[in-house]
């Protein structure tokens, strides 16, 4: 049975269903008894555990619990806060399985909200998946629809390795209400350009998984390949729609996970279209757009005629929304780049 759920409801359902059938799963983080109140009501304070603002301690504790037989879901609130606990993620959590030669495993999910577009300033709107995907031993999932949100979260919870699950604030409505004050606006959807298909969509009631490392072709096309992830997938689709009206055929690939990365999907598409545009909300250099370029160059250098990237600038994120719009990718900047490539 499939119903329409919001992006946030889909994630909630995934966690609730998994927690109900595996008592080793617990949630730990700041304010989780508030943010995850229905889960707190259902599973109690033993399994939905509030913490002090001590990310190093509770992320490390989750790692230790994971290799001691539990399956923690760490609620990091915003991905920006990864920096205060970076050592526990970069040097502990993701190295222990390897350095112990598989003696210890770390089945753990880090859940964090990411992304900008609502004017929250430089330390609360970052994407940062370029950092996370560069860490060996860490999987990175970034859903763009409610269906994927549930399926990827269940895959993340069932995975026996550390997984970062990033939910974009433009898709997870409760974040826009809490941090963006969405309720203030008569038309919040317009105010934040919320993509309908990302914020709400059909989700099967029963548990299911969306496999890691399997990109989704959101739109078929033959003239240009656009590769993206998260909210920007919807921005790209909107642009493709507009260009289709002019007879231009744009293929849009949603990576869904950065680690593992579905290199094959990107390569096959580029072999067909010979043109590649990467749209990335993270900082431009030394990140996702580069890895996609390298992937194609390694396997299909010959077939790549044109490559561009529309990304966040290599600058911190400015507060003023007029500047934020310039700093982050937008339908405008994506369309401009696509048009140049389709000339």
């Amino acid at each position, binding site marked *: 049975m499939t119903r329409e759920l919001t992006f946030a409801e889909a994630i909630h359902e995934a966690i609730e269903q998994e927690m109900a059938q595996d008592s080793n799963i617990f949630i730990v983080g700041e304010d989780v008894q*508030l943010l995850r109140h229905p889960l707190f009501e259902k599973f109690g304070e033993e399994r939905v555990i509030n913490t002090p603002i001590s990310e190093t301690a509770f992320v490390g504790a989750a790692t230790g619990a994971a290799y001691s037989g539990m399956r923690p879901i760490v609620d990091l609130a915003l991905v920006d806060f990864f920096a205060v606990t970076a050592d526990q993620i970069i040097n502990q959590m993701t190295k222990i399985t390897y350095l112990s030669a598989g003696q210890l495993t770390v089945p753990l999910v880090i859940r964090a909200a990411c992304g900008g577009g609502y*004017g929250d*300033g430089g330390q609360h709107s970052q994407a940062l998946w370029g950092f996370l995907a560069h860490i060996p031993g860490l999987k990175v999932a970034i859903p763009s629809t409610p269906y994927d949100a549930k399926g990827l979260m269940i895959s993340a919870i069932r995975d026996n390795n550390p997984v970062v699950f990033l939910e974009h604030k433009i898709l997870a409505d409760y974040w826009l209400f809490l941090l963006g004050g969405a309720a*203030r606006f008569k038309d919040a959807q317009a105010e934040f350009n919320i993509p309908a298909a990302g914020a709400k969509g059909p989700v099967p009631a029963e548990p299911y998984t969306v496999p890691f490392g399997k990109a989704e072709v959101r739109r078929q096309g033959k003239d240009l390949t656009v590769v993206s992830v998260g909210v920007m997938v919807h921005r790209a689709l909107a642009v493709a729609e507009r260009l289709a009206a002019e007879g231009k055929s744009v293929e849009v690939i949603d990576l869904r996970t950065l680690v593992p990365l579905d290199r094959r999907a990107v390569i096959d598409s580029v072999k067909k279209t010979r043109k590649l545009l990467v749209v990335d909300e993270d900082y431009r250099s030394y990140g996702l757009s580069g890895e996609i370029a390298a992937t194609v160059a390694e396997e299909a250098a010959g077939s790549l005629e044109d490559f561009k990237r529309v990304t966040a*600038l290599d600058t911190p994120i400015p507060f003023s929304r007029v500047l934020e719009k310039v700093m982050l990718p937008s339908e405008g900047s994506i369309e401009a780049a696509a048009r140049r490539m389709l000339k």
Partner: protein
Amino acid sequence: MIAKDVALDLYRRMVRIRIFEEKTAEVWHQGLISGEVHLYVGQEAVSAGVCAHLRAEDPVEADHRGHGPLLAKGVDMKRMMAELLGRKTGLCQGKGGHMHLFDRSLRFGSGGIIGGALPLALGSALANKMRRQNLVSVVFFGDGAANQGAFHESLNLAAVWKLPVLFVCHDNRWAVSVPKSYSTAVPWNAQRSAAYGMPGEVVDGMDAVAVYNAAKPLIERARRGEGPSLLEATCYRFRGHFETDNMAYLPPGELEEWKAKDPIPKLARQIVEQGWGSNQDLERIKAEIQSEVAKAAEFAESSPWPEPELASKHVFV
């Protein structure tokens, strides 16, 4: 006991914060300020009582709830409000916003990462110490920040280096929805100062005069080069964590109980009782500030947006 002019100065600083913050809330709800705002309403006595001792050149660092310290230090409200609205005329030309308020002329900075400001305050103090300037750095943070590793490292290092720093902890009992009583293993963070061999005091942060008197010796001590100390001020955020906080998690009656201790009427009563000023005097101060705030809001709302090119400036200088 304090002098008349001090009392009136404290009153003015608190009213400046209160009226500015109420205006900020109004403007935020109109949708003119994007993102979060963490207002200082209810905590005015803390910033007022501490900043009354500071010189313009004394560096101050604050957290996400930083409007109070900045206003108490005497910021130009026009440029502050313009920054909150993301305008070109703002303190940071709209690039910083509510959680990133910088005013070089006041050596003021703030940030949104909990605990992140404490190490920075050590730096201005170290610079001032190296240059033999007897200036004092003050850093304001919350009870929640006292459980971040940065708190521990910073207090220890400030003590080891004997830096002129005053650590001011707003003990407003909550970190978003998590009570201090749950997250902190000891009743008072001031007790933790013993772990760094520095003085630590708890003061009633709803009483401007008490804060003023408690901060005085600690700041003077730092100015004399005798090292850092920790001041913990009990207070309360009347408007909740931020403007979207419904405060459903609060125990019944707690908010009302604290609102009854509002530091502004309290000081007003003292002023009138002590004969330091009349109700008319206080009304005059309020009126002055009301118009200052109104002008600031007008200025901000009528200010231009930053030009798009600004987005790529100031990454490197």
